């Protein structure tokens, strides 16, 4: 038995334990349990809250985690640092579990930030390469800035409700929603890579692909959605917060889809797709429909993990994630091809994949958002329209990627790729099955379904038509390829500002603040020298000093009496 299986067994044990715990709650009543009562002052108690939502997310997390762990034995099993990699995955899962089941906000925060750290460590797994280093640093910094929003948000919740327990908070009348909501928005916008803190996610792609599948598609980035869904009752009363959430999600979904459409790199395109899809979920939440949002979370988790893992297989085969290096893989890698086809179909929203149903629910929710829900009607309509456009674009880029990766002519001069080992294809098959299986029992809305199918077909058709005519699928839109330079503040301006202000601080510290100490030291030295000058050895000078002293002292005494 190879040692790498040890970690699979560990993960499996964890997964089984979690499953045993979570499955009974899938349809059961929400259960809150306090394991360790907190100190009065610290007010942190180890409490869990499991309901059907959290049970589902738990199962998703450990399921994908286990699959990724299995997949990694083949993908990275021979890497010299496999051990730390596998252990960090386990730590990550623990963090995710903490976030999902925590009833105490501080426990949630711990899990939340542990996930961020694991993300940082795993993106930087290939730390020899500058691109991985900078991607990891950027991811960590941007998510951590967001985490601070959560931290202050938690403080605000505690201040407002007098407790840090989610169940107790939700039991009260919503108060102070706008302030709390804005702080939490900062948190989720960063963690879930929403505009304007969205640029870290594509840059996190130098991380190992299984990690991308687990952390940057299925679980951690979705935690923001989960958090908002859990706390929706206390956020909903604030129209400002919900409007902001809607606007952010609309911008993000459109931008993500547009950027995904023009990428020349499969993995990066999928990353933008993730950004866009997360915005979909937030859009659903912004109209107050947490079920639609979380359903899409689960379905997206499954099919996006599938896509990324498939992408990993392709990269494994061709040694690159550039689309130009792919093509013609349909016959060489049949399992990857078919499973990824299912994944792309789900992404595009093709019936009967789960992607269709959950997107359908989101659109349905948005359509209803005009009449009911927390959003102003106009905004809801606008978001609905943007979502339709995004559906169109999503179908288009999914088709484009599928065509370029598998059906395009093979790249020249490359060694013949071969199918990935079974440890890698196995998880793909499982996830592909899940993509269909999860559809069972999903709600179906006829009108919206027809509309969205039409939109999707239009998107697919447009790309296919272009493909048939033999025209390039690369859009000539340089400003889109440059991703609208939205990353520039983070990659250039802020670091430059930080560097120069840091330098200024050091200079001021040395030459400004420290001046008083050096100044007084040299004053003392000068004074000492001056005093030394008086000591010339000339007696008359001494006598003069004494006489002058007497006169001054006497005069002073006379004046003040």
């Amino acid at each position, binding site marked *: 038995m190879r040692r790498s299986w040890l970690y699979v067994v560990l993960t499996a044990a964890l997964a089984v334990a979690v499953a045993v715990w979570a499955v009974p709650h899938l349809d059961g009543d929400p259960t809150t349990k306090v394991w360790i009562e907190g100190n009065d002052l610290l007010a942190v108690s180890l409490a869990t809250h499991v309901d059907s939502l959290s049970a589902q997310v738990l199962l998703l997390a450990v399921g994908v985690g286990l699959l990724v762990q299995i997949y990694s034995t083949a993908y990275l099993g021979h890497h010299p640092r496999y051990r730390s990699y596998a252990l960090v995955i386990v730590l990550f899962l623990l963090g995710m579990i903490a976030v999902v089941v925590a009833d105490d906000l501080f426990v949630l925060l711990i899990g939340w930030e542990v996930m961020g750290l694991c993300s940082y460590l795993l993106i930087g797994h290939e730390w020899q390469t500058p691109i991985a280093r900078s991607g990891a640093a950027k991811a960590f910094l941007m998510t951590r800035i967001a985490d601070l929003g959560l931290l202050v948000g938690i403080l605000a919740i505690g201040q407002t409700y007098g407790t840090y327990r989610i169940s107790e908070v939700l039991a009260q009348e919503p108060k102070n929603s706008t302030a709390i909501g804005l702080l939490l928005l900062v948190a989720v916008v960063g963690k879930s890579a929403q505009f304007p803190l969205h640029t870290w996610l594509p840059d996190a792609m130098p991380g190992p692909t299984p990690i991308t599948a687990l952390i940057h598609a299925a679980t951690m980035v979705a935690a923001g959605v989960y958090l908002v869904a859990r706390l929706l009752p206390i956020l909903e009363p604030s129209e400002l917060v919900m409007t902001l959430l809607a606007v952010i999600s609309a911008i993000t979904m459109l931008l993500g889809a547009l950027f995904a459409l023009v990428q020349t790199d499969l993995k990066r395109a999928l990353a933008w797709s993730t950004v866009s899809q997360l915005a979909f979920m937030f859009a659903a939440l912004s109209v107050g429909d947490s079920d639609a949002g979380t359903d899409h979370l689960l379905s997206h988790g499954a099919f996006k993990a599938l896509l990324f893992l498939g992408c990993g297989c392709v990269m494994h085969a061709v040694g690159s994630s550039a689309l130009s290096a792919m093509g013609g893989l349909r016959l060489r890698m049949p399992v990857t091809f078919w499973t990824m086809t299912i994944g792309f179909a789900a992404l595009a929203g093709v019936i009967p994949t789960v992607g269709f149903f959950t997107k359908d629910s989101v659109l349905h929710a948005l359509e209803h958002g005009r009449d009911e829900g927390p959003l102003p009607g106009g905004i809801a309509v606008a978001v609905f329209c943007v979502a339709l456009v995004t559906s169109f674009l999503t179908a288009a880029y999914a088709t484009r990627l599928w065509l370029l990766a598998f059906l395009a002519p093979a790249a020249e001069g490359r060694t013949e790729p071969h199918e990935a080992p079974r440890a890698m294809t196995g998880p793909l098959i499982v996830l592909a099955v899940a993509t269909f299986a999860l559809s069972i029992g999903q709600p179906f809305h006829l009108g919206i379904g027809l509309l969205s199918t039409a939109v999707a077909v239009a998107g697919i058709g447009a790309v296919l038509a272009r493909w048939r005519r033999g025209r390039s699928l690369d859009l000539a839109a340089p400003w889109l390829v440059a991703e609208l330079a939205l990353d520039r503040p983070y990659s250039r301006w802020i670091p430059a500002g930080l560097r120069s202000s840091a330098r200024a601080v050091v200079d001021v510290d040395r030459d400004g603040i420290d001046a008083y100490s050096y100044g007084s030291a040299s004053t003392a030295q000068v004074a000492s020298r001056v005093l030394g000058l008086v000591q010339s*050895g000339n007696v008359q000078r001494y006598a003069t000093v004494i006489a002058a002293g007497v006169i001054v002292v006497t005069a002073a005494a006379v004046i003040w009496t």
Partner: protein
Amino acid sequence: MPLLYPLVLSAALFGIGLYGVLARRNAVLMLLGVELMLNAVNLNLVAFDAWFADTIHTGQVLTLFTITLAAAEIGLGLAIVLALFRAVRTVDVDEVGAER
């Protein structure tokens, strides 16, 4: 005789003595300046004593002491000047500056 006269005289003497100490280069003349200062004090004391008609004559007693002290001081001073002259062959104080 008004008290003011001897006091003014005394102040003048004191000032001249002080000037002598501060301005003269010759060590012996500086000693003379000291002597003048001490005598100014004596004048003061005697004048006040007379003015108060002090029955136990504190002023005069102190005057006597002061005269003695002045003698002792000058004696010591001259001894030092002598030793100084032996050591550095001059009584010009500007050349006597202590080694530093």
